[in-house]
């Protein structure tokens, strides 16, 4: 199996911009969120062109700030979760696009990028479902201090899972 020459990272970078646009659309509830979201999408687009990880991080950070601002402005849980998923994917794809470009360049990449995009989206979707279920079943009904303690414990546990 040998594919023709490709431009590695283009598909993943494009997916990053698409996810960024989706996050922007979902979380644009006011002027501040519009500005933050637009800045994030522009940074992601620039990262796609420039293959820059710094721009990718800046774009992801701006979109995340937009999300936080939108939630504080009253964005509902379902939209917030969808925007969080889109933000995470935009950030991840922007980084992996740069990574594909750096490691493969014009080398053939086969189905690597589509599988990465779909696989990462699946991981994020499962995580979102788990979070939504936990939120609906327990976190939403717990007193705030309990919910916070639960979350912090979960973060600590995931950190401990890393070798």
């Amino acid at each position, binding site marked *: *199996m*040998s*594919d023709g*020459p490709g431009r*590695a990272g283009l598909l993943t970078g494009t997916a990053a911009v698409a996810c960024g646009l989706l996050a922007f659309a979902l979380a644009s509830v006011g002027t501040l969120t519009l500005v933050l979201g637009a800045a994030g999408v522009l940074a992601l687009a620039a990262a796609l062109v420039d293959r820059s990880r710094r721009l990718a991080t800046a774009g992801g950070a701006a979109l995340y700030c937009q999300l*936080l601002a939108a*939630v*504080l402005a009253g*964005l*509902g*849980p379902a939209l*917030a*979760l969808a925007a*969080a*998923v889109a933000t*995470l994917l935009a950030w*991840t794809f922007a*980084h*992996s696009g740069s*990574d*594909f470009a750096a*490691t*493969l*360049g014009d*080398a*053939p*990449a*086969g*189905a*690597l990028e589509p*599988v*990465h995009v779909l*696989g*990462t989206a*699946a*991981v*994020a979707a*499962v*995580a*979102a479902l*788990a*979070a*939504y279920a*936990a*939120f609906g079943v327990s*976190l*939403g009904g717990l007193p*705030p201090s309990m*919910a*916070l303690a639960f*979350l*912090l414990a*979960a*973060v600590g*546990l*995931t*950190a*401990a*899972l*890393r070798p």
Partner: protein
Amino acid sequence: MTDERTLVAERRTDRWVGLVGAVLVATALAALTRTPTLLLVAAFGTAVLAYNGVVRPPEATVAVERRVETRDPGVGQRVSVETTVRNVGDRTLADVRAADGIPPATRVVDGSARAGAVLRPGESVTLAYDLAGGPGAHRFEPATVAVRDVAGLVERRVELDPSPDRLTWTQELSAADVPVEPRTGLPGRTPADRGGAGVAFHSVREHRPGDPLGRVDWNRFARTGDLSTVEFRRREAASVVLAVDTRYEAALAPEETADTAIERSVSAAGALFEGLYAAGHRVGLAALPATACWVPPARGRAHRDRTRRRLTEDPAFAETSSGTAVRGTLGERLLAELPSGAHVVVLSPLCDDDAFRLARRIDARGNPVSVISPDPTATDTPGGRVAALERRERLARLRETGVDVYDWPADAPFERVVADDPTREVVRRE
């Protein structure tokens, strides 16, 4: 095919570094503003972190097979290489990135020695490319294969060393020579600028006791009564050192797929060795900055075979091995070892002042010098045009000092260049 894998690294790509901070910010904001939806965002981040914590790199169940068109190509010939990476495990590898370990002093002129793929059990990906390299043996480095999980968070990297692992570009033993100045006093075939026994007239000098009677100028004796002796141009052998510039600074080519100046210089040195040796000279060899290779000028079958072997096998003549000389120290060993009167043929692109200075120093030391300069400059960019002008200036300054300079354009055969007049500047259309 080889399935002997050497684990090089197991690592996290840290693609989600910073996510913990984002989750903590959302959690803190949720506490401060009493916004439950932020808890949902934090919970999502935590779930993603959990995946990041538990995911492990897949087993690198791959085997690598390498096929080469020929193991003994001629110099200048491209070699097609096909390296196949196959998933020999029973699980799909969602992210496989492979890079063949091309020999350090070669270059890919077509195709790619890298590839990425998703490999189901039994599937393979082929890295197909053409290699070019200079004369001599070149050893492949191990092929590297990295496998990652589907999200690219963790990676396992292995190295495999498939056969064949060596290519040898063989040089046709064509011969070429340049005029050299014999100063050894040893009998040979090249007319020297000294009188003695020979055929061609050189000069007449005062008779000294012991001069052969056959060389007395009897006509002059009859006219003037003075005894004088006729000197003929002696035929001598020269001591010649072929000094090849193999520094990093000489690994230059006018375009990415063209032969580098080092490869051209090494080929030319091979041809010159054959030609000068056949002409009866004592020929030696040096690599600049001469960290490893110094073969003093000599004759004999053993010397000839040894020098041929050094040219094709010594890593000093591979373009990545010799590195950079400390500024101003280029050729120190050559100057220290150089026999008095030896003619030095410097093979260098002369794209920096160090090689230029070395030629001047050898000339100032009293050793005859010739310079053969493969032109690696490209004139399609302003920087390239400046480099070409500077190089041409160096060649002109060397010519002014009486050094024979052969400017070797990238598109000209070497034999034609050395047949040309070394005092004439090559005019190029740009």
